[in-house]
């Protein structure tokens, strides 16, 4: 088999050196009761050519050549060629977690640059080396807030990504962390600050908001911060659309930022792998989960980097660790690092502006349901979103995300997104379909 590098004669030499007749003897010490005495019921191995063929066939069963208006936490952005060029280098792709600093300075240096750029983007003091994704970074941030405040309650806005809130409930359930929610304003789609004031109390550890929120609306994070801080709670700000940070104010009032970097050159890839981040204030760093890279020197006095503050982590602290996370998303974070490098200070702003321009052009034609300001996605009321989408598929267009699954009160609405990759002609087609709901009904 091509992944096994030994010749039969080498194998024989090694068996002889081990003092065994056959490879079977290596397993002779296993109790008979545990042995599998038949071949695995899996087909024999196949060639590269056949493997490519198999996956091309599967890919052909997915959407191909469709325009898409799906966003909702996963965005279609152009992936600069440099990204795959860099992450395909075996030195990055096939290396381990950089515990051995002397021969891992490449990875360590890129992570240090990553942490720095995430701080610059979010306005926070420190950022970790990555979390699995945004949906797990958020509950980790909530648990971190509970450790810092010594309180248990989490209060999440209903306009935070619904699947993130589901994950929060899974994580919180067995930690004695009650999770409650507060609403959004019906007209604007912004967080309902009055509702927040009503529900927050002296047991609230974390107030969790997202901006732009799940409806695409830019939220008043600083007002939420004031309310949280008045009650001694921390504010956790979530983002799912990292490109928005190229043009939007960073969440200055946040104590912890928990975000998803999928927008930074990470393929949608049917839901993962992506890369999450947690960034926070300097004073909270020792309660942070995940790996951190720090600057130091080697014995010759040269600048060097290494993993640091690991007494927070599971391999040292075991059951008292800040999190059980071990493997995270280093290579995906590297994709984001290359993306941020390619676009840089000016390019990221211009990219964000193009996104806003596209989405606002579309909103000019189909009108957003909420009055709140939005970045590159917004809610459209269209009667029967499933029927509209069905009609659109005939034009090779995947419409927006029907919201009824997550928000029963919005069963008549869909969430649509436009990015720099969305073409004007596609948007015109979408708006035609949306303006003809009767036609959609008929087609349905």
């Amino acid at each position, binding site marked *: 088999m091509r*992944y*096994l590098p030994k010749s039969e004669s080498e*194998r024989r030499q090694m068996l002889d050196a*081990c003092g065994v007749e056959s490879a079977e003897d*290596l397993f002779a010490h*296993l109790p008979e009761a545990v*042995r599998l005495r038949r071949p695995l019921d*899996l087909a024999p191995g*196949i060639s590269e050519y056949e493997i490519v063929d198999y996956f091309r*066939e*599967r890919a052909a069963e*997915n959407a*191909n050549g469709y325009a898409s208006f799906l966003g909702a936490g*996963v965005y279609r952005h152009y992936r600069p060629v*440099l990204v795959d060029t*860099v992450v395909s*280098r*075996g*030195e990055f*792709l*096939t*290396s*381990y*977690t950089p515990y051995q*600093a002397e*021969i*891992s*300075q*490449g*990875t360590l240096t*890129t992570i240090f*640059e990553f942490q720095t750029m995430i701080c*610059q983007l979010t306005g926070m003091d420190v950022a970790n080396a990555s979390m699995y994704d945004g*949906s797990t970074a958020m509950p980790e941030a909530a648990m971190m807030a509970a450790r810092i405040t010594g309180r248990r309650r989490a209060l999440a806005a209903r306009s935070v990504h619904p699947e*993130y809130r589901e994950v929060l409930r*899974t994580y919180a359930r*067995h*930690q*004695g962390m009650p999770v409650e929610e507060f609403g959004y304003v019906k007209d604007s789609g912004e967080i309902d600050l009055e509702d927040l004031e009503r529900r927050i109390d002296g047991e609230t550890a974390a107030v969790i908001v997202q901006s732009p929120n799940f409806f695409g609306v*830019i939220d008043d994070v600083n007002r939420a911060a004031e309310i949280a801080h008045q009650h001694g709670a921390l504010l956790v700000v979530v983002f799912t659309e990292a490109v928005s940070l190229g043009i*939007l104010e*960073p969440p200055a009032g946040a104590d912890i930022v928990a975000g998803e970097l999928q927008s930074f050159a990470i393929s949608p890839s*049917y839901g993962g*792998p992506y890369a999450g981040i947690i960034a926070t204030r300097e004073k909270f760093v020792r309660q942070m989960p995940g790996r951190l890279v*720090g600057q130091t020197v080697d014995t010759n006095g040269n600048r*060097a980097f290494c993993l640091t*503050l690991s007494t927070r982590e*599971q391999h040292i*602290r*075991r059951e008292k660790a800040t999190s*059980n996370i071990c493997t*995270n*998303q*280093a290579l995906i974070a590297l994709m984001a690092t290359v993306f941020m*490098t390619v676009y840089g200070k*000016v390019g990221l702003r211009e990219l964000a502006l193009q996104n*806003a321009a*596209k989405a606002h052009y579309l909103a000019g034609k189909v009108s957003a349901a909420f009055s709140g*300001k939005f*970045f590159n996605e917004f809610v459209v009321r269209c009667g029967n979103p499933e029927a509209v989408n069905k009609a659109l598929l005939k034009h090779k267009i995947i419409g927006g995300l029907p919201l009824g699954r997550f928000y029963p009160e919005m069963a008549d609405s869909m969430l649509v997104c436009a990015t720099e990759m969305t073409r004007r002609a596609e948007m015109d087609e979408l708006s035609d379909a949306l303006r003809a709901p009767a036609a959609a009904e008929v087609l349905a």
Partner: protein
Amino acid sequence: MIRKVRSHPSQNEALLFERSSPGKRAWQLPDLDVPAVDAAEALGAGNVRAEIPGFPEVSEVEAIRHFTRLSTWNYAIDHGMYPLGSCTMKYNPRINELVARIEGLAWAHPYQPEPLAQGAMEVMARLEAALAEITGMDAVTLQPSAGAQGELTGILLIRALLEQRGNPRQKILIPDSAHGTNPATAAIAGYVVENVKSTDTGVLDLEALERAVDGGVAALMVTNPNTLGVFEENIVQAAEILHAKGAMLYMDGANMNALVGIARPGDFGVDVMHLNLHKTFSTPHGGGGPGAGPVAVKKALEPFLPTPRLKRVRGKWAWDFKSKRSIGRVRAFYGNFGVLVRALAYILAHGGPGLRNATVDAVLNAVYIRKQLEPYFDLPYPAPNMHEVVFSDERQARLGVRTGDLAKRLIDYGFHPYTVSFPLIVHGALMIEPTETEGKLEIDQFIDAMISIAKEVETDPELVKHAPHSTRTSRVDEVAAARKPVLRWKPA
């Protein structure tokens, strides 16, 4: 005598921020085909940020040189053997990278309509079935992001089943040889951790287990083979002890590379386990992720698996979000799909017989290393080993040289160090796992290097204690890094 490597110049490279200057660019956007917007008007004046302070500005050529130069400062499997015990650093087939980037897979949006995602769902279903066959379990979820999240999922499943039976119980038993993620996971799942001692031979102590298992114990978390590389010979009896008291057996599948095709956890009493696709199933470690941590369970635990679940409806795949007894989601969407594609490509390449042959070679390599190094290093647990072998630095420590020093000296010989000081039950551990993808030549060079270092300890211990000597970065001051943390670049 160092034969595997000699030095060559490596490029110096500043940080991005230090080589940045205004006006440089590596990007170009197409002209807008819609009217431009005024940022303040479209987004709200108060919402628009000033420029991002300190964000880099570099040219395309500089960008690629930057990352290429940095890459040369890394060791990688593509350079050579990576004998990290329990990490299973095996060759990462490049075909897996290619297929994961096929457009219809890589650009599939998790919310695209199910009829337009059948290919992606078929890939997941096929992988679920293959992993169920390999583990001997009844059902598999591919949702967990990595091993530690798989552990959490598994323990939450146990908790859910015990809750349904009336009492979730309070304790999780963990052997003293376990990975750190095990106790950390148990704590997050709301359990108290109780350590159980291993026997003198390094395996589960059935008498101690019998005493420890009472009505308060929810499960035992065990790695098999354990972190000594030794198969838990009493595993069937251990499962019986647990099951008799209504407790469950959780298996950490980190060392599954020793078992595929040889023995199946489902056949020896395991109720729930996770797999690390970035170990046994060859997906690249990428300098620390991404991984994937599927969880395999017996029938009784299936109703509690995370939602959504794949199901077959009228000949098509569909997502089932409705499961009354599910523990809920452990992450958004369906899992690290791109990693799952790579793992399936690996399974297809090997096929059933090939996977078993891989296991055999992995064990052969480890046993061979043990035989060759036994005369030079102390072997605290002489039980037969499987895919990895654990020595201790006892002999070298008498001369003042510790496992960490030996490991650093290995770098000068052109190898990545083995796993240092783990498992904790071995004082000064050297934990070595070659995997099946090392040939005889590479392994013989590794053995020669280890023997040469053992001799150096006797003739010139200082040489070893201050290694590495040949790297562009000499020994790094980790204490200073932790004492006064500098976690981001700032302008001078």
